[in-house]
């Protein structure tokens, strides 16, 4: 009896210990900025391979537009653009990776939508690229418009807004289609270029980039003129850390403002000597902005000095300075008829 009592006491103690553990706070991620400062780096989820946006070279080093956004963050936070661990993520993996804390930010051609912003527990930064969904077809099909695609077999990546817009578009136009859904971007494009699908759908810019980057003869393929959706692509952070969200917002705004104010990688040191109070505030000559964000005062200076302003990043990775040769179009500054508009840094 005594033994049994002791036994139960021991059992109760074990259970109590476990429950005590369980009753404690769930694993606390803590403010992201503290965590990454301690680690000396942060991890950035990028696409597994979209020419111009994020593509590894033969050494496995990632470069492209999405990568440069993370470089600019790194420059602003650490004063060094190289403090980033790039984690290639498929469209299906990316949100779980962000939610679980495997990455600190997604710079992953992610479309900003209401359900992602709410149900998925995510926060979106400023839009860094305005895209729209399009269709790519081989020339030999002789298709001139998306309206002629009734009955087509269409390759699409799962877990994207693309997959949903595709279904919506064909429903709205009372057309039929057969989706071929493959997660890996390499596999899905291989399937399209081998002729498994009549049509490839995705963000139009991505399609154009893949056409140049992957097709054995890009001229055999054409991106149809229709844009069936709005795809505002933005960096993403998780709920629960407003400071980190603010930092991402304002670093992106600083890149855009840099272009608007004519601050470039080459002349940023000159610009520090300017009399313009707005530029002095932004570049940290007049202190205050960095402290408000929890960063060094030269945060914006470092980002522009080390990575360049928004326009320079665009031209280098996607624009005329790249094999993509994309026009700025709606991704131009608001002063030039585009949509890029930075919120006042003051």
């Amino acid at each position, binding site marked *: 009896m005594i033994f049994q009592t002791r036994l139960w006491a021991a*059992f109760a103690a074990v259970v109590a210990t476990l*429950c005590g553990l369980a009753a404690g706070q*769930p694993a606390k991620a803590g403010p992201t900025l503290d965590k990454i400062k301690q680690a000396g780096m942060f991890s950035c989820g990028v696409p597994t391979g979209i020419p111009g946006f994020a593509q590894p070279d033969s050494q496995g080093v990632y470069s492209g537009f999405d990568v440069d956004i993370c470089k600019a963050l790194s420059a602003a936070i650490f004063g060094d653009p190289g403090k980033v661990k790039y984690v290639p993520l498929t469209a*299906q993996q990316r949100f779980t990776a962000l*939610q679980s804390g495997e990455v600190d930010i997604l710079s992953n051609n992610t479309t900003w939508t209401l359900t992602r912003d709410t149900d998925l527990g995510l926060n979106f930064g400023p839009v860094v690229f305005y895209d729209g969904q399009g269709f790519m077809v081989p020339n030999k*099909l002789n298709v001139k418009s998306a309206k002629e695609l009734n009955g087509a077999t269409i390759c699409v990546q799962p877990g994207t807004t693309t997959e949903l817009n595709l279904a919506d578009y064909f429903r709205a136009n009372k057309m039929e289609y*057969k989706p071929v*859904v493959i*997660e890996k971007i390499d596999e899905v494009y291989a399937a399209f270029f081998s002729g498994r699908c009549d049509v490839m759908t995705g963000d139009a810019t991505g399609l154009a980039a893949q056409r140049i980057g992957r097709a054995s003869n890009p001229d055999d393929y054409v991106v149809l003129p229709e844009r069936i959706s709005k795809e505002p692509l933005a960096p993403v952070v998780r709920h629960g850390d407003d400071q980190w969200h603010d930092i991402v917002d304002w670093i992106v705004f600083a890149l855009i403002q840099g272009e608007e104010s004519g601050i470039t990688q080459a002349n940023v040191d000159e610009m520090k000597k300017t009399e313009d109070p707005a530029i002095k505030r932004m570049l940290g000559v007049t202190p205050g902005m960095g402290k408000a964000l929890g960063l060094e005062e030269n945060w914006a200076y470092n980002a522009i000095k080390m990575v360049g302003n928004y326009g320079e990043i665009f031209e280098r990775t996607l624009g005329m300075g790249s094999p993509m040769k994309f026009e700025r179009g709606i991704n131009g500054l608001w002063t030039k008829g585009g949509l890029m508009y930075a919120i006042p840094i003051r």
Partner: protein
Amino acid sequence: MASDEAALTLAPARPAPWRDPKLRAIAYQIVFVAAVVGAVGFLVHNMLGNISRQNIATGFGFLRKEAAFGIGESLIPYSPADTYGRAFLVGLSNTLYVAALGIVLATILGTVMGLARLSGNWLVAKLAQIYVETFRNIPLLLQLFFWWGLLNTAAPAPRQAWQVLPDVFVSNRGIAYPVPVASPAYKWMALAVVVALALLVPLRRWAAARQAATGRQFPRGWAGLGIVLGLPLIVFVAFGAPFALSVPSLHGFNFSGGSAVSPEFAALLLGLVIYSGTFIAEIVRAGILAVSWGQSEAAMALGLKSGQRMRLVVLPQALRVIVPPLTSQYLSLTKNSSLAVAIGFPDLVSIANTTMNQTGQAIEGIAMIMAVYLFISLSISLAMNLYNRAVALVER
């Protein structure tokens, strides 16, 4: 209490409680269960805490929302206007379909190959051995990519499709073949098959009784075949033999009419059957070799023909050895079908993945996948265990 203690100390046969193996075993078990329950509780608590901190929605309500994504192939009617729940059912039916077909075909292939390895013919035995050793030792995922790549790149575009048989077209959209147009007669014919199968039981009983009484054998096999084929045929003729073919023909991008097997489905089925077939071949070979040669000799001495020898003496004993590992093979074939994700066949995992991504309900989605596979696996196990009990050696 005191009397208890006295009893303990006075009884030399009972060791001290901490030395009593029985009590110790109970204590260990309690600690183990407590540790497991505690660990699970901690993880669940942690998860719920994290989810609520990040404001992620939870629950299974998403299953009633509109799915709004398309699915390439489906056994049940589906459109993007249907719910996530229905999309999940589409995935489930696709998984069950490919697994069931795979199990049947792999069993046939495996049995043939297993017997071929035992063949006295050197060429047949070596070919079977090469098949087994090659496909057993290459990872299944690679094989799937191989078959899929082959079907995609070797086959032509639909407009240049190969016509392998009249009205059967092979292209990189899959294999299109004619099917009979649906008619009410077919439902009744299916019923006739069921009735015919039910009739086989009394037939068999009667034939056995007659053989026991008179010693005369009744050609059960032929009579059974006659009933199973004849009864539906009578129904077919009674309905006025309604027969029309829906023939595939090229319309716009693809074939319409008839029916079609997609390259993804074909590659998955081919890969699963060929891979699992190797293991089943070895299981069958082992089972037959496990029956000692003396049994066959005894059967011959009794004057049994070679077919009877196999059916009445060798196979019943071999099945005892074959069935348990065969169950494992069926289970792994079913679970391996989830590799479909890699080549784009919309199986359960593929659709659940898409659902999780569109709704963000990863935990619910994973839980559903696990529950479904557990249920399928336990069902297969149950069925095979019942069968095993039927073929197991009855000890007297």
